[in-house]
């Protein structure tokens, strides 16, 4: 994984610099709790942004606002230049362009692995069954689950389920992929297989927003680290700078707690 880092960064350097995801002055409240405070964030095409920070700091909420699984109270969110629709068909269409991977996988429990991957393409992209299946098998091959295509989610390990979830999101040909703590529910030995898939994706130039506690992944695959605490972006920097020379006290404190072990 270490030697892949330069390749990852080269992609971003060569990539189109147009902003793909833009959050402007985003504020959100849960009741009286101010969970996102004046968030300004730009994710460029091909960029891998890793969001880290203490629990309860707003990382997941931020990630979920980008495809409007969480509504926002103030500010604007643009995806590829278009404001995020409030609801209805337009929102559904936009969501189909934003891939989402959840902490708890959320594979459709009553459908087989293959059906999980083909559901979106057949119903939303209107691909034929055969086309969708062919592509799904190619994606499952890529994440190493093709031989389990006829099984149900509960029959797979957590790591396998999460790789299927990534394939399901990729099947929609998303412009950007959101990962909301994708390895937090996994046993240690399964974390690597998921991170490997994610690292490959990053290397291929996929635009990614990743909320994670995996500092190794953050260091190796990220173009930029966004450190969030108490609902605010406290610091934004390259991984090298952030991990070796954090500027804010809050980030230094956070890093001192997680990097000692």
């Amino acid at each position: 994984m270490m030697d892949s880092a330069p390749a990852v960064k080269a992609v971003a350097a060569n990539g189109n610099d147009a902003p793909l995801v833009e959050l402007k002055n985003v504020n959100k409240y849960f009741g009286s709790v101010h969970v996102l405070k004046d968030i300004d964030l730009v994710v460029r095409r091909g960029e891998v942004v890793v969001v880290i920070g203490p629990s309860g700091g707003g990382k997941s909420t931020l990630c979920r606002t980008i495809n409007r699984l969480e509504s926002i109270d103030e500010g604007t969110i643009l995806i590829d230049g278009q404001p995020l629709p409030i609801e209805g068909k337009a929102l559904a269409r936009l969501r189909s362009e934003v891939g989402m991977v959840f902490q708890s996988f959320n594979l459709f429990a009553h459908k087989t692995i293959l059906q999980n991957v083909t559901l979106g393409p057949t119903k939303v992209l209107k691909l034929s069954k055969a086309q969708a299946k062919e592509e799904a098998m190619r994606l499952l091959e890529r994440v190493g689950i093709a031989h389990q295509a006829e099984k149900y989610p509960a029959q797979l390990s957590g790591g396998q389920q999460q790789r299927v979830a990534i394939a399901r999101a990729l099947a929609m040909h998303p412009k950007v992929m959101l990962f909301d703590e994708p390895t937090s529910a996994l046993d240690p030995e399964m974390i690597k297989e998921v991170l490997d898939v994610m690292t490959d994706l990053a290397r291929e130039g996929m635009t990614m927003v990743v909320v994670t506690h995996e500092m190794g992944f953050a260091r190796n695959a990220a173009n930029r680290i966004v450190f969030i605490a108490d609902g605010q972006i406290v610091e934004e920097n390259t991984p090298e700078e952030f991990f070796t020379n954090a500027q804010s006290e809050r980030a230094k404190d956070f890093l001192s707690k997680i990097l000692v072990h």
Partner: protein
Amino acid sequence: MDWNNFYDKLLNFGPFLEHSNEIWSGFLATIRLSAMAAVLALVLGTLLAAMRVSPVSVMRATATMYVNTLRNTPLTLILLFCGLGLRDTLGFMAQAAPTVSGYWLAVAGLSAYTAAFVCETLRSGINTVPIGQAEAARSVGLPFSQSLRLVILPQAFRAVIAPLGSVLIAMIKNTSVALVAGYFEATATMKQLFDDVGATVPLFFGFAIGYMILTLPTGLLFGWLAKRMAVTR
């Protein structure tokens, strides 16, 4: 004690055997009513459940009002309304033959009533589906209607197969008041026989067992289906 009378009322299976044809056609009528009402109640109940969880507040309010009204009105009253109100007063299906109008009015009343219970059962099933399933469906780009139809409802149904069986069993037994809507089924047949040949215990038990022959397999079938279709998480 009059032993002849005792024998006549308790152990004489004569009337039961002599009138087996009428009894059979009575239960056939019960089955016809149950089958049609079950299908319509499941369809209408599903529609109502979908409305009750929809993002449109008018739909939610309409379905809630429907459920609260129908669920809290005695079935006999509803069926009476179908017969007296819809047909006799408002003239609905007044031209049809009494056997035909009786059937459809009983179907209407019974399925409208049962749909309220199907709706509430299904809604409790929807509550068993983890929120992540809906979020995943939305993230893939499915609009609300498809999320519900393709992801949420299939799992909700599987979670409530056994309780839906109870609802249907209750419905089968509820057909026994269909006479008030003008439909002649098993219980009406029994009452008629009691009037014609006298009330005997074997006759009564015959009808009671007849209902069990309909309801027990229903319970077994739904119990079996519930196990077979259960979603493993």
